[in-house]
């Protein structure tokens, strides 16, 4: 049987003494990724119960060609102040949102895209 998550996706609120990470948890289905931005123990699996959900990320562009993302900045700030690590994709998104400095990966992606466009044209 599929290991269906039986926990609350918005977070259990159970805080362990281990180091935390703010990272993505995949909640989509096949060929349709959808992510929750969650605070969870660094060593816990993707599908394990998170401590808290601090945002949502939909990587597939919608009808207006937008990739939607939402953050709970207050809670993210709280967790970063507590020493939570921020994973690279989340740091990337937060950089684009203007909360953190723009991540180098964003720049890299941008110049790579530019190069492919130049090549194609």
């Amino acid at each position, binding site marked *: *049987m*599929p290991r269906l998550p039986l926990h609350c996706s918005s977070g259990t609120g159970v805080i362990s003494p281990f180091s935390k990470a703010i990272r993505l948890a995949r909640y989509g289905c*096949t060929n349709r990724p959808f992510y929750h931005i969650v605070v969870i123990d660094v060593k816990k699996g993707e599908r394990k119960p998170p401590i808290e959900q601090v945002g949502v990320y939909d990587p597939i562009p919608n009808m207006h060609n937008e990739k939607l993302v939402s953050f709970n900045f207050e809670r993210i*700030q709280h967790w970063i102040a507590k020493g939570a690590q921020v994973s690279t994709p989340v740091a990337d998104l937060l950089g684009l949102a203007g909360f*953190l*400095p723009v991540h*180098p990966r964003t*720049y890299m992606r941008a*110049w790579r895209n530019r190069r492919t466009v130049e090549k194609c044209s």
Partner: protein
Amino acid sequence: MTISFYSFRTIQTMRIININALTMGTTGLCETFIPNSVYTQCIRWKRKPIWLPTAKSKVFRVPKKPVIPMEDYVELKRLYNNYRTYMTSFNAYIRQIAKENKTQVNETVVNELTEEDFKACNAINDEWNAKIAKIREIRLAEMREKRKNIILQSILKQEQKQEKRKIRINELVKKVKEESITFITAENVDAAIEECLTNIVNHNRALDVEGNWHEGKYPPIPLVEETQEPAAIEQQN
């Protein structure tokens, strides 16, 4: 290959359908699949189990290493260095903010604030209570009046009922008194007997369709005809 991960029944079904652990995912079965079970739900989830070796087609595959040009490498290094510096200072800043927020919590101040808040809330509560008390008084007065009216009406109805009952009983008593003249008592029982003996009324009569009276006789004459006897016997039975 160890298959102790699967239950006995699942292994059995796997053997019957002739599939292995790899192809099980595409058949809609899973570890907890039980044949003839009343409720099974099959959702595509299964991936290659971790204990299976590298696929035969992938054994000699060598993944390509990405080639990063020197310019990009230098640029990325610079960017990452900047980013890391920025992040350290940012983290320090956020921690400082948190610390400041933490030190701001003073017990006496908090207590005073809570007290003030409580007073304000209490005042509002009292106001609401007074307002509601007025409404309640009006409502209760109305309710009392209504109840009084209902009780009075019920009393009135009861009295009317009693009066009606009295009248009815009086009528009955009158009727019985009027009738009581014709009653046979111990005093006039002899006269009544005598009258009965003198005026014998014979009820043993019958009227036919044409209006002729047939006087009956007592004791009744038994039927002599033989043809009707068995019928009479049958009727008796």
